[in-house]
């Protein structure tokens, strides 16, 4: 599932590295690097490589950093500490940076890492 191409939006494709870094201000350098890889490759694998850092950014204060490898069965709230506000904030950030057309109600059924992966892939493919 990871090794598939998904379209890069025209808006994101034209961003300079500095603009990508600005859009991801405050995120780990590995996130920015993955975003730049994705911009070039259009591979979902590169897009997904941003997720541990992006999840870490949105976790509440004091929560443990998520593992580097995110298993599909991991529950976002109970296991990773990503509450519904943080999940929605994260989804909206991804929408703003990558133009995913996410609406408030879209994230209601996203419970596990597998759900999140499928959700983001669908949004990337159908925007």
């Amino acid at each position, binding site marked *: 599932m990871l090794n598939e191409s998904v379209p890069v939006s025209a808006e994101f494709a034209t961003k300079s590295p500095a603009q990508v870094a600005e859009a991801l*201000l*405050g995120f780990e350098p590995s996130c920015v690097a993955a975003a730049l890889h994705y911009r070039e490759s259009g591979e979902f694998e590169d897009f997904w490589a941003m997720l541990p850092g992006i999840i870490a*950014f949105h*976790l*509440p*204060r004091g929560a443990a950093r998520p593992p580097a490898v995110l298993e599909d069965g991991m529950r976002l709230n109970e296991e990773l500490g990503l509450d*519904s*506000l*943080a999940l*929605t*904030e994260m989804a*909206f950030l991804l*929408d703003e940076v990558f133009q995913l057309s*996410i*609406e*408030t109600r879209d994230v209601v059924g996203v419970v596990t890492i597998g759900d999140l992966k499928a959700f983001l892939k669908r949004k990337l493919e159908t925007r």
Partner: protein
Amino acid sequence: MSGSVVVSGVGFVTSIGHSRVSVSEALRSLRHGLAPWVAVPGVEVAVKLAGLLPGFEVGAANPAAWSWPGEFQIDASVARPMPPQGVYALAALQQALGEAQLVPEILEDGATGLYCASAGSARTLHQQMGKLEASGWQRAHPHGVISSVAGALNFHLAALLGIRGSSCGFVSACSSGSHALGFALDEIRLGRQQRMIVVAAEDLNAESALPFAGMGALSAASDPALASRPFDRGRDGFVPTGGAVAVVLESESSAIGRGVRALARMLGWGQACDGYHVAMPHPEGRGLGDAMRLAMGDARLTPADIGYVNAHGTSTPAGDRAEARALTEVFGGHRVPVSSTKALTGHGLSLAGLMEAAFCVLALDEGFIPGQAHLREPDEDSARLHLPRETLRQQPRVVLNNSSGFGGSNVSHAFSCAHP
């Protein structure tokens, strides 16, 4: 109600300093914090000056771009969902909690409460509503409410500090901070809480300040030394400022039991409304006069006991005139030193009353009376007041702190010196 209540901690993020030491120095030397201000880059607006907060950059729409002076340990993930003034509040809290030695075990014991005053963030609300409308009303950011509404400050701070006692926000415009402190005093005197943390914070940006231009309330002056000149014949409006102040009130028995030094005593307070106009004060300062009398009655004081009044004095013609008349009527022949420290800070709106209460605490603890800066020629009503042009090097024993807000709400606090 019974029991003495003391102030055991204060913290400042103001245009005249971000520490007790720097604020005290400014009050003693009458150093102002007003400076040229670009409210909207590239656009000429009527307001040229503001009370700025050097070292704090919280104007960006993306909170990840915010920054603050290095002496403040603020977690960016805590600040991110807050309104911009939340950063100021965290910095002021760090100072006040440190001085009062309030550690997590005490904050979370159920005997410690939190009252806040803030108008919310018009800027964040503006940004969030713009995005929501642009999405066809389908995409509401999860921080849209908690980063903008008037209660946002107490929402965040109560959760962050682990408060399990009282928590509430106060919204009475420019008397909000004073209302929060007054009701916090009652909360302790009623025995409901042993300690109350009171925080007031206000934004400073185009959205928070420029709407006041439509009411003719803002000074159009461009000289920082003359723009905010309470009680002066030449005043033409207030100069806006933002920032935060935190004050810890505590029952004296709690402070003694914890071995914490009392900075001042809070003796009482009073509030009274003008019953007159939504935005204009009663011409004779009717409600403010009543508030001062009620505060003195609550504290069992007479006008002869009062050694200083920190006036609301915003530098607006109507407001200063009403307050001057109220002070003259209440104090009669008693020659009480009066000053408005807004000449130095600018007007902090919801923040103002608590900021000036904390200035009174410094004056009582350190032994000085702030002078009336920027006063050249008092008008006819103000000429009846004792407005010292310089800070007086003398120990006040009892002081009043006045605030007035829209709707004609008025508050006065009474404090006394805590040491012999």
